[in-house]
């Protein structure tokens, strides 16, 4: 199996597009950091609020949210944590990281994860389909290796590429932050459920990155399935990207119906449990993880069944 993955990895990097996507990701990250820096210097905010003022306003807003009796448990927990953190900051004079600091960039690096999803979808949709369109599938399947092993090696390779992109995202965000913004003052505080504790911005950034990787994983798997079933990379990539954008919108349309709880895109963003923006009530992290795993099993089952049984006429 290791040799098969080695093969897929070699083929992946023999294509220019794989390199271009990594480079493009780095360029986009440096670019956005550069533009932000330029905007900040060209148009400085007049009379900026002190961090205490910002924190007081946030505290007031979060307190008001807590008065809402219809909050779900997850949302209530989130607002309670935010309130506790703001109070702790004001009492102990502990400012948060400045918004234009390397540290804040690292904490928020996951917001660029949609680019990683996009690039992963391109690889995932093409890795099986391209073997069919090039006709190499018949060379690949007339080897003493069972089909499911070949498919598995392709899936693992796709996910390794996705992980690599996420790591590049994290490192480049930190580098660009360091170059354009430098190390800022502040502390990162987190609510562990009973008290406010100081945390590492690196770990926080990694945690959010790992949570948002769930959406890369499941949408990548979806594209992988489409590429395997339809043997057309353009269809797989196009449909996956289309669903990636419209699928989340559909959550709001479906929000009033019970079915929304079992809808994939309600659960793709696991960071929602830490950012407080949970569009659907009564869902929990555990439920989201279970729903994602069920979808994953369905997608994989369809991929393996079609790939294993198909008569190759290409």
């Amino acid at each position, binding site marked *: 199996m290791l040799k*098969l993955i080695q093969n897929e990895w070699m083929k992946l990097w*023999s294509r*220019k597009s794989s390199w271009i996507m990594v480079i493009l990701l780095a360029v986009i990250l440096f670019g956005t950091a550069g533009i932000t820096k330029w905007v900040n210097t060209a148009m400085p905010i007049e009379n900026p609020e002190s961090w205490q003022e910002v924190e007081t306003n946030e505290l007031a807003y979060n307190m008001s949210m807590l008065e809402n009796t219809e909050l779900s448990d997850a949302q209530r927990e989130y607002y309670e944590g935010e309130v506790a953190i703001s109070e702790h900051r004001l009492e102990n004079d502990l400012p948060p990281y400045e918004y234009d600091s390397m540290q804040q960039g690292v904490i928020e690096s996951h917001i660029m994860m949609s680019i990683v999803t996009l690039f992963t979808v391109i690889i995932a949709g093409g890795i099986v389909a391209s073997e069919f369109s090039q006709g190499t599938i018949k*060379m690949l*399947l*007339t*080897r003493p*290796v*069972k089909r499911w092993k070949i498919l598995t090696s392709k899936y693992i390779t796709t996910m390794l590429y996705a992980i690599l992109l996420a790591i590049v995202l994290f490192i480049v965000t930190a580098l660009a932050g360091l170059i354009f913004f430098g190390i800022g003052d502040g502390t990162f505080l987190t609510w562990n459920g009973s008290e406010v504790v100081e945390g590492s911005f690196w770990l926080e950034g990694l945690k959010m990155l790992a949570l948002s990787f769930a959406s890369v994983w499941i949408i990548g798997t979806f594209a992988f399935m489409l590429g395997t079933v339809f043997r057309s990379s353009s269809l797989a990539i196009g449909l996956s990207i289309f669903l990636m954008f419209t699928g989340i919108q559909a959550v709001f349309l479906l929000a009033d119906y019970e079915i929304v709880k079992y809808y994939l895109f309600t659960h793709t963003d696991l960071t929602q449990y830490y950012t407080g923006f949970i569009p659907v009530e009564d869902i929990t992290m555990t439920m989201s993880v279970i729903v994602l795993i069920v979808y994953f099993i369905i997608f994989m089952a369809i991929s393996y069944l079609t790939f294993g049984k198909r008569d190759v*006429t290409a």
Partner: protein
Amino acid sequence: MSEQALVQIKNLSKTIGSKRIIKNLDLDLYKGQITGFLGPNGAGKTTTIRMMVGLMKPSEGDVLIDGKSVKHSFEESIEKVGVIVENPEMYKYMSGYKNLLHFSRMHKGISKKRIDEVVHQVGMKNRINEKVGSYSLGMRQRLGLAQALLHDPKFLILDEPTNGLDPAGIREFRLYLQKIARENGVAVFVSSHLLSEIELLCDRIAVIQNGELIDIKNVKELQQSRFLFKVEPLAEAEEILSGIGFPVSRFEDGLLVETEAQHIPGAVKILVNANISIFAVQPFKATLEDQFLEMTGGGDIAQAHTK
């Protein structure tokens, strides 16, 4: 043949929709023997070959390679097979060497040395590090042969292997296949449209039409010795020759006599003595093409008669 067959095709059938594309095919292939696989377009050659290498699943029947079933123990059976199915498509964005490395990793125990050896054998040493995209069709065929030979297979299946090779390449290819069949005891199964090529290459020919195996012949049988006599008067000569026991038939404006070369001078002497004018006596060779057309009834594309 008393020898155990290396490859046994048993009752192989394929039904797609309601159409039976391959009908109960039985065929044995032996060590050291090159078998040609002929048939008009659409007769089911490619489908048969695809089922033999596991690209398509048979609806019925099975293929045994060295006793192992392709259906039930795919890895063990296909390990012994080298395959070129139609044009050998390679990864164009990688070098020839990387392509071979790629395929070698899918077999057990192929060393870098073995790759170099095969590259040398197919005469690709100078261009092996260039991208396959820059290769000519003939070079791709050579690379295709190299990937099929990497794991030293006991059985080679080739579908249209000489497509795109130049005459020198075809000759080299033929001699090479005959060499590995003879020296290494490899069983070879070749489908081709180039009948003259099959005739030179193969020991045995299997003909398929409309999904059915209609004939298996040894090439030697096909090349029985016949002579064409151009003589006058024709009727008299025919009478004389058949009178002394030669099988004679009319062919165009001459007589076709089935006999060995050693009997020719005697026959000529008798004709001369009988005052028959002899214009020419020449060996007559029916080409495989003639026989093929005879066997398949004109070589219509299969199913055409249902129109």
